[in-house]
């Protein structure tokens, strides 16, 4: 049986036996990813809507290219930056977040945020500008205008969620640096894959990869169902 066949068998075996260390790794992966995603959405969606709607915002000419650049930040650089901030000598060293899941969430949030802001902004800008004006005329507050416009742009906003989710669940450089891949504490699927590959356990590494892809697929399947339902009207 080749490596690939063994990998599928291993993946199945790990899942079937609910391998405790796998369960722990998957749980932490989901925790870190979802926490970072939720924080990035809470900050990024309103920010993206604000920038998207404020077409005459001063400094927009600089802000928008900065956001676009942020969308392509190399995760490893974010990891390094977060590491320096959270390390003992760093400004936030006192928090003791380095090599903890909280530190990993910080790094992942920084990676996800520009994606959420940029894609939300683009989705909102795709809406006919007369819509916010007509909502104002119907008595909407600025905040309500943003809410209504976001709902109109819901398909695009869901795409922002999907992109951010995909970027952080598959990310390895930042969580490796900031988390340290400590078994039972900061090991997530991607860093486990790196470790098992280095150890020569290719089948196990591949099995973990298959599980990671499976989780990503299931989540995206759910996001897509949501998008289809929203698209009806």
């Amino acid at each position, binding site marked *: 049986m080749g490596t690939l066949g063994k990998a599928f068998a291993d993946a199945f075996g790990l899942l079937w036996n609910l391998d405790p260390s796998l369960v722990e790794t998957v749980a932490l992966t989901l925790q870190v990813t979802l926490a970072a995603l939720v924080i990035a959405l809470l900050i990024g969606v309103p920010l993206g809507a604000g920038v998207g709607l404020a077409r005459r915002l001063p400094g927009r000419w600089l802000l928008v290219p900065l956001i676009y650049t942020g969308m392509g930040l190399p995760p490893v650089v974010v990891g390094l930056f977060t590491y320096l901030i959270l390390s003992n000598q760093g400004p936030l060293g006192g928090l003791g977040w380095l090599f903890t899941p909280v530190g990993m969430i910080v790094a992942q949030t920084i990676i996800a945020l520009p994606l959420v802001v940029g894609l939300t902004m683009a989705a909102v800008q795709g809406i006919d500008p007369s819509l916010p004006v007509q909502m104002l*005329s119907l*008595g909407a507050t600025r905040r309500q205008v943003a809410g*209504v416009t976001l709902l109109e742009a819901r398909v695009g906003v869901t795409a922002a969620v999907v992109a951010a989710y995909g970027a952080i669940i598959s990310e390895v450089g930042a969580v490796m640096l900031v988390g340290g891949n400590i078994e039972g504490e900061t090991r997530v699927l991607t860093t486990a894959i790196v470790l098992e590959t280095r150890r020569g356990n290719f089948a196990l590494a591949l099995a973990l990869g298959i599980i990671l892809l499976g989780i990503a697929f299931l989540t995206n399947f759910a996001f897509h169902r949501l998008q289809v339902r929203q698209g009806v009207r």
Partner: protein
Amino acid sequence: MNTAYRLDDVRHCYGDRCVVDVPALEIATGEILAIIGPSGAGKSTLLRLLDFLESPTDGAITYAGDVVDGDVPLAIRRDVTTVFQRPMLLRRSVAANVRIGRKLRGLDTKGGDTERWLERLGLTELADAPARTLSAGEAQRVAFARALIVEPSVLLLDEPTGNLDPYNVGLLEDIVRAENADRGTTVVLVTHDEFQARRIANRTALMASGSIVELADTEAFFTAPEDPRTAAFLEGDLLY
């Protein structure tokens, strides 16, 4: 006569081009004022100023006795609403579009108001239809219903019957007259249809190149215009 709006030296300019230039204008509470005039005259821009969607470059707009500038109080903004030349409906059901104004005000949306307005505009059958699939005339009636359901003190109408068949034009004019009579709604109607102005307006104004050329009681405006440009416009000459 109570004054709904008073404009003093109001100008609205894009760059150095002023598309609205109105030295003085009063709109009485409870009147129906029609504004006619050539395309590009600044009629829609004037309505945006009256709806406080833009602030004038210069001059002062007084609404119900208060000078309104800078941040317009929400209560004043909610007193006025527009039916736009090109209504933009939400990607939701027709009924959801009709009740949006009440929802934005935090008012009850379950009550019969939505149904009543759907019915008044002949939209009952379409209540659950996605609004984006409507024909132009249907969409215009939805825009009308969603404006009237908030019971505005001032109703601004920008070519509201452009896409309607004669039956629905009559229906809308009846509703405007009824709201004006029953609730004292002030109406400013921009129209290219002179007969419509004659049918429902108390006063009529001609606007050209940003200025009010003539403003008079509707009857006098059409039968005995004082300004030669009004006469020319009514005869179908191009005005600049």
